[in-house]
């Protein structure tokens, strides 16, 4: 152990566990007292315990990006508040994106001081997505707004409860700004959660003394930091880059905004350079600092240290380089940001994940290499419906089928189907019967075939469902669906999953029962019919006879699909996860008339596909069979050459772009997506291309990437090249 200060490891463990339980109990309180399905079903909330000086010392594991919200909130309090005025029974709240800086404005922060005797010794924190904050439309995401003032109610730090009594002025002001008064109940649930944190922590103080608890909380932060640094040190020094695109078409113009992330590993530290940002946009896709840092932190935790207690120690080895002020990733204060975390934020996260996994794949440590993972859809394409129902009641309904997007494939297991954002560790879709408690009727619900990215381990599947209004004559629909044109990135040699999408059948599908119509919708001929609305639309007027069909994105696969065990391919076909055409075309599996596996024909077909990848030349080498996932590339002993990890042959010197030496093919993205059976929305003016890089010796797929038309694959691995820029702490 590198720790030098003397401490009692037993007590360290006891207190660490106690503090975790405090946050878990607070999370249970919040969940059970909430009325919002976004809390009770999606678990879109978190609870934290923050030290007096602003370090997060314990955290419930529901939504790692909220960790940054907690940190920011207490920093803002320490910067702006006269602490001598703070008293027991006070609760503070704020949602201002630039001062208290939560993940986004619809996730207000509630912060509560905790006292030991007369001394303020810690802060309880909780945050929850409220379903309405006013603005153009309910839901808290405002795709049609041009700036922050169209996004609803923004409030800086306010004492909302004094000595247990709600501030009537605040309550009146809040209710005057929102169309759903129950939105305030979510803040009440946060107050209840912070009360739980406070009272449960008091018992820990009673037992061990507040000073000892603070001392050991700090020891736990130090331990987490030490171990986080140790893991980072196992990644090879160098700079790794990746690109992604932010989609937006909500103001009538279809646009893709390119961004890239450069990750430098230097010793036990990560430097994350976000300077390559698009300009600030006049819509809700700009990301605040909290949104960016939150996703990055979540991905680092999941990839490198999901086992460490989450506290301030885990972010201390991370440094960030911001883009220029007035850019999409560092917007000005008037910018709209209500969906920045889900729009540009997730694209930064996807690029970051890809860059990080280039380093993970080349680690000397097999445990680190085993952390390889594809990328989830990381999207929840919400449809928010509001209107007056037949009983005369104003109703807002968010379809939670939108949570049905797949997770990325893992090195040991296929990606989880319908797992939603990878960071939303407690997400779940609703029962159909609960969905239908709102004024809707569902025609069917299934997994969207081929939506999970093909690979040795398959990406998680997205949902496919269709619904219609029932018991409401006219309504308005706000939708945003942000993985329609560029699907998930796919590190590790598998394919991206499918995108999200909506189709509207105005006037319905003609005569037939609800089950007949549902069956017809699932026939292949209806796959491409119906109207395709903008992926970002605000207050579309909808009629009772229109049918809405929604697809969820899938996660990306991991590893060449030609390595996938044929029995799994046959099982996926039986379960309707994949269609019959991709079985021989993508997986190289040949099935007999009864669905049985033809082993010899499969071997031949797989050889044939590898030959096609090499432009018709049969491969010179056979890849090693793969029973456990392995990275596509490895380094030679001196780190001078990239070798194919499947056949061992050298591919390129590490001083060059290995992709220039690979066997390469590319297609217009929609064309290749058709081969893969995945859904990707075609654009009017822009063409993206899918590139596949194979080993020139054995023909194994090493990486699949997407580039803009005319763009060349970049050199994205620069071993040993590190930046001296200090960067900012999180």
């Amino acid at each position, binding site marked *: 152990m590198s*720790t030098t200060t*003397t*401490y*009692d*490891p*037993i*007590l360290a*463990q006891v207190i660490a*566990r106690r503090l975790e*339980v405090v946050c878990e109990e607070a999370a249970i309180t919040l969940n059970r*007292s*909430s*009325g*919002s399905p976004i809390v*009770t079903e999606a*678990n879109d909330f978190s609870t934290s315990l923050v030290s007096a000086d602003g370090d997060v010392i314990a955290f419930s594991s529901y939504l790692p990006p909220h960790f940054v919200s907690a940190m920011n909130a207490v920093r803002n309090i320490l910067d702006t508040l006269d602490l001598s005025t703070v008293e027991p029974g006070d609760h503070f709240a704020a949602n201002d994106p630039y001062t208290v800086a939560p993940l986004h404005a619809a996730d207000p922060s509630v912060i509560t001081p905790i006292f030991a005797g007369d001394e303020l010794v810690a802060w309880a924190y909780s945050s929850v997505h409220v379903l309405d904050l006013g603005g153009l439309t309910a839901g808290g995401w405002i795709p049609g707004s041009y700036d922050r003032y169209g996004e609803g109610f923004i409030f800086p730090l306010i004492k909302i409860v004094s000595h*247990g*009594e709600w501030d009537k002025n605040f309550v009146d002001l809040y209710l005057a700004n929102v169309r759903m008064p*129950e939105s305030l109940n979510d803040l*009440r649930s946060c*107050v209840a959660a912070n*009360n739980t944190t406070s009272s449960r922590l008091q018992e820990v103080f009673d*037992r061990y*003394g507040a000073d000892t608890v603070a001392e050991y909380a700090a020891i736990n932060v130090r*331990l987490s930091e030490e171990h986080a640094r140790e893991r980072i040190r196992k990644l090879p020094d160098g700079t790794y880059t990746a690109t992604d695109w932010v989609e937006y078409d909500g103001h009538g113009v279809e646009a893709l905004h390119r961004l890239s992330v450069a990750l430098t590993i230097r010793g036990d530290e990560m430097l994350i350079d976000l300077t390559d940002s698009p300009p600030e946009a006049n819509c809700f896709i700009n990301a605040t600092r909290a949104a960016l840092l939150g996703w990055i932190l979540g991905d680092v935790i*999941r990839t490198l240290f*999901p*086992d460490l207690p989450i506290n301030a120690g885990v972010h201390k080895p991370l440094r960030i380089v911001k883009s220029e002020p007035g850019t999409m990733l560092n917007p000005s204060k008037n910018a709209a940001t209500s969906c920045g975390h889900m729009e540009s934020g997730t694209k930064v996260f996807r690029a970051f994940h890809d860059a990080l996994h280039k380093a993970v794949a080349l680690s000397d440590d097999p445990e680190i290499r085993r952390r390889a*993972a594809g990328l989830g859809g990381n999207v929840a394409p919400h449809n928010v419906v509001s209107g007056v129902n037949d009983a005369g009641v104003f109703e807002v309904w968010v379809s939670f089928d939108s*949570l*049905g997007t797949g*997770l*990325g494939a893992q090195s040991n297991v296929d990606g*989880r189907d*319908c797992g939603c954002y990878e960071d*939303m*560790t*407690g*997400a*779940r*879709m*609703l*029962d*159909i*019967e609960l969905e*239908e*408690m709102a004024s809707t*009727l*569902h*025609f*069917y619900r*299934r*997994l969207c075939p081929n939506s999970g990215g093909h690979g040795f381990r398959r990406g998680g599947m997205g949902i496919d469902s269709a619904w219609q209004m*029932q018991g409401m004559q006219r309504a308005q629909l706000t939708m945003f669906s942000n993985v329609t044109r560029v699907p998930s990135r796919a590190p590790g040699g598998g394919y991206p999953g499918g995108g999200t999408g909506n189709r509207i059948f105005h006037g319905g599908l003609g005569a037939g*029962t609800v*089950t007949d119509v*549902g069956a017809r919708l699932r026939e292949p001929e209806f796959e491409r019919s119906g109207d395709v609305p903008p992926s970002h639309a605000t207050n579309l007027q909808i009629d009772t006879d229109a049918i809405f069909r929604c697809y969820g994105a899938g996660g990306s696969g991991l590893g060449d699909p030609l390595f996938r065990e044929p029995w799994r391919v046959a099982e996926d076909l*039986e*379960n*309707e996860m994949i269609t019959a055409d991709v079985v021989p075309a993508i997986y190289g599996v040949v099935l007999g008339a009864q669905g049985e596996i033809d082993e010899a024909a499969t071997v031949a077909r797989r050889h044939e596909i590898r030959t096609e990848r090499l432009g018709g030349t049969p491969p010179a080498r056979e890849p090693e069979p793969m029973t456990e996932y392995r990275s596509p590339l490895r380094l030679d002993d001196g780190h001078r050459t990239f070798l194919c990890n499947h056949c061992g042959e050298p591919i390129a010197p590490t001083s060059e772009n290995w992709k220039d030496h690979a066997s390469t093919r590319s297609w217009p993205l929609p064309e290749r997506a058709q081969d893969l059976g995945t859904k990707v929305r075609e654009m009017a003016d822009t063409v993206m291309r899918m590139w596949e890089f194979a080993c020139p010796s054995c023909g194994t797929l090493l990486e699949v990437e997407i580039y803009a038309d005319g763009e060349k694959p970049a050199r994205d691995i620069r071993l040993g090249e590190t930046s001296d820029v200090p960067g900012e702490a999180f």
Partner: protein
Amino acid sequence: MRGMYRVGVDIGGTFTDVVVAGEAGDIVRAKALTTPDDYTEGVTAAIDSAATELGTTLGELMSSCIGFVNGTTVVTNAIAQQRGRRVGLLTTRGFKQQIYIHRGIREIQLDLQKETRPPDIVRQRHVAEVDERVNRQGDVLVPLGEDDVRREVTRLVEEEGIEALAVCFLWAFRHPEHERRAAEIVRELYPDLFVTLSCEIYPRIREYERMNTAVLNSFVSEGAETYIGKLTDRTRDLGLADGRISFMQSLGGHISSEEAMSEPIRLSHSGPVGGVVAASHFASVLGEENIITADLGGTSFDTALIRDGRPTHAHRMTINRLLTGLSSVDIHAIGAGGGSILWIDERNLPRVGPQSAGAYPGPACYGNGGREPTLTDANLLLGLIDPDKFWGGTVRLDVDAAAEALRPVAAQLGGSLEEIAAGYHQIAVTHMSTAMAKVSLGRGYDPRDFTVIGYGGGSGLFLAEVCAELGITRLVMPRAAATFSAYGLLFADAIHAQATTAEWGFASGDVDDINALYDRLQEQAVEALRREGFDESNTTVRREADVKFVGQSFEISMEMPLAPIAEDEREALSARFVEEYERVYGAGAAWDGFPIVLHTARVVASGITEKPPVQPRGGNGRAAAVEPSGERTIRVRGGTVAATTYDGPSLVPGARITGPALVDDVDTTLFVPEGDRLEIDELGNYVFTVDTAMPTALAATSASGGAS
């Protein structure tokens, strides 16, 4: 001894325990090896040996038996090991993948490598869609396609070889006719096929839970049919009168063999319930109403809350990662027991469990080749267990093996063997007190208002310290704490619960509607008891409601009046709900001004069985003379002390002991820490008075414990 006997049978993984109570409350215990190929063999053997001890014959005992209650893990195991029938599922057209999608429910894992799919109890190819559709009002949008039912069931049976069927249609709890008609058609085609209807097993909203409940019920039906059927036949052959046999359910009471055969899933997870039932009864004998139970076995620590003499219940249980509609006595289990393995995590911090060394090889000190250190090994090194008196001296423990197992972790953590063992012991105490805090504080109850009843073989060495952590002063450990769960079967009542989704507004609903609904549920529940031979004289009824503010997803349970609800009672009911809500979630948490809705109406009818009397052991209430058996040096946190030892069976009612002391009983050892007192009450129970004064020295001593 002659007379009316009551028999409790607890079939465990290794042993089948039998407890027989005579009319006077005298208790005889017997044990036999469990016989998984035919459980009735082990049961018969155990009862036979009990009969011998009672000086009677097996036939005599059985024919004069007035209650034969079974607790079994047969159903639990079938699910855990995923060994059950090949189940087919009929569902609404368009929704066959619902059971495969599992709502995408995440496991709350930061490590996505652990984010795996729940087990599939039914294969996708065994799910068939049938044309039919009902909407939320219960109106039929598409009539049942009867030909679909015939075709699909025939296909599932003839081509896919399904062995049992479940039927779950959307909104079937609002409109059960489609499921019932489907069942009729199936019965015409395959009269012997086991069929579960979702509208019968769990008539409530949320089709995924209904579907899982129905599928699981069909899945476990084979084991249940063979076990319940065989046992019923066998006991009848042995002379047991009809209607005397019953089966413990997870809800806390027992049901008849006919019911257990048709709804076997209700027996799932009933194992630890016996102990809680026994504790509830025990509490009433002691005159206590508020109890926390604590059961420490080899692999787990189970704890539950009893308030006002009744255990609390958990609804919508998750079984083997599947959400179901089942209700159970609310027992919180954690992976900490005598066999829990002691280890060191990557941050070099000591951890206890949840991995267990199991029964074999078990702790290192058992000498069966176990090499990993366990809690029992730590307790042995601390001197808390006498190596020569374990299990009444039948097993001799190997202190050297325990030391050998613990040495590597002690070296890595940098402390003496005893220091490190004491540290692990302390962590286990923390785990247990955290679990007990969860069932009390976590539900808004102050543990200091409760008495702890402790049982299970390992409890005695920890519970006094656990109680001290929570500020609980009173701890009672019954004699024969180790077989308390089987004993509890003798005190269980017959229970029938009927529940349905009501969605009745406290302010707006029609009182006639809700009263009629409760009357109907009550009639169904009472009728089920009538069939088992209970009548008004020995039946009690409770009306319960799961209530929430409109818009919430979770409800709070409250008791409802038995008399019809009157118009002018609405406000009082609302006030009671708000009061209960704020008790749980704190002041200011209630949703001011929001309507309140009765989500689920439930009627629980209990058929009260006669309980064996609890026999006093004599004694006159005066302090009795106490003779120590010796002294052991024990290591406790902070230092070494000399503890006086006592021989448990020699302690008579009235005996008083002060800590530090150890009591070696036949199948357990009790640790009485310094400052605590232990008395034997007139029933022979061990009653601790725990010193809850702050151990102020703890923080100071621990900081100097030191590692680097």
